[in-house]
């Protein structure tokens, strides 16, 4: 069956509805919420603070430490077992690597900046939502950054290249290919690229262009959310 129309009626290059808010965790140094479709991520930044065990300290620069966690009730019905698991460890690591190219912690040697990302509700694209929320929370915390990081998933569903897959599309019959990407739009750097499924060279090219366009739109929303916090509605 040809995939002529997306399951939720979106255009092939259309994002799910996006919402972003800054300052959702008042006790944290910086925090942000990022919602894309039914996926909701909340990020909180603590630090810089002293890093223990001391063997992990870097005497020339601070360390960024991310923690990704899906809440027990966040999934589609089954309870998510709490605590770290192989998947969350991996996503924590790729989130760090996605944010590290823009974050400059050279002024805080030996210390750690903790970023906690909690997924309240999940419906595909959680690591991307987490990265978007974390980038905003870091900016809100006043950590020096060369750029914001914006992130979105692209993929191939039923032979069509689509932007921002939903859970139904990821589980689409036959092959659905899912690529998580993150961009630093100003520098043009790709900071995250994870592919799950087969794809031809041309399709990948087309998908990445689509992802960049999606990230540009997301960056506008992130920027507006940061500015509106301080009463700038432009």
């Amino acid at each position, binding site marked *: 069956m040809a995939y002529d129309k997306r399951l939720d009626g979106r255009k092939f290059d259309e994002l799910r509805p996006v919402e972003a808010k800054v300052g959702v965790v008042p006790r944290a*140094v*910086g925090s942000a919420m990022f919602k894309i479709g039914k996926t909701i991520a909340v990020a909180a930044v603590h*630090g*810089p*603070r*002293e*890093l223990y065990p001391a063997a992990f300290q870097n005497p020339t620069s601070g360390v960024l430490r991310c923690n990704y966690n899906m809440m027990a009730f966040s999934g589609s019905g089954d309870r998510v077992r709490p605590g770290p698991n192989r998947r969350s460890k991996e996503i924590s690591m790729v989130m760090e690597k996605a944010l590290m190219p*823009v974050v*400059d912690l050279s*002024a*805080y*040697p*030996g*210390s*750690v900046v903790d970023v906690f990302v909690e997924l309240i509700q999940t419906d595909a694209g959680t690591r991307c939502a987490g990265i978007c929320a974390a980038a905003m929370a870091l*900016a*809100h*915390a*006043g*950590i*020096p*950054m*060369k*750029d*914001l990081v914006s992130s979105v998933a692209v993929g191939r569903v039923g032979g069509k290249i689509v932007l921002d897959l939903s859970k139904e599309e990821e589980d689409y019959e036959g092959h659905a290919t899912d690529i998580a990407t993150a961009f*630093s*739009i*100003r*520098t043009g750097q790709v900071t995250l690229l994870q592919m799950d499924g087969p794809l031809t060279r041309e399709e990948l090219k087309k998908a990445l262009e689509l992802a960049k366009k999606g990230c540009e739109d997301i960056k506008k929303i*992130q*920027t507006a959310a*940061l*500015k509106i916090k*301080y*009463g*700038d509605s432009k």
Partner: protein
Amino acid sequence: MSKLLVNEKEIVVPGQEIAEGIDFLPGDDVIRDKDKLVSTKLGMVSLNGRLVRVVALNGPYLPKRGDLVIGKVVGVGLGGWRVNIGWPFEANLSVKDASSDFIEKGADLSKYFNYGDYVMVEIINVSSFKLIDLSMKGPGLRKLGSGRILRVPSPKVPRIIGKQGSMIGLIKDYTGCKVSVGQNGFIWLSGDDPKKEVLAIKAIEKIEAESHTSGLTDRMKTYLESEKNGL
């Protein structure tokens, strides 16, 4: 041709291009990337001739030599005290810099400053990120008595003090509280009436929330004037 891409006092986000061309110079929290000046923080653009800088709205405290800060005593040793000044690593207050009184060698230093005491100190040396030396010799430097401690982000401290201390003077006048502000964002305040202390705290929180807006001193005056009657 050099030109500004944003207005002065506009809020910018990290990675936002502020100016184009080589005539502008990068100041605090601004970096040059080829011919563009780029902000590295969420803050307000401020121009001073050719110098472009961003006044950050939040951010960690960076210890600087000469800063007067408020810290908490977290360690008492043989040769001095360890003090938490809101930096990831503890600062050192040695006996010789702590007092002009004679302190006998091997004396119990907790008699002078004990765990949990708050002190107003000056940073006299930042030799590396883990070695920060403090001194208590100077006007206004002392052990802080009973009172309340608040914390605000250190970039907001200049607004809380105001031009030539106008803002903090206003709070002191209206509430009658004694207030000390450290550059690191620790604030100590003490008054004879808890209600007045609460009003002073509310006022400081209001300044913190509205620090990026202009005409704040006048608004604070009206606010304190209206709240004063409730005391």
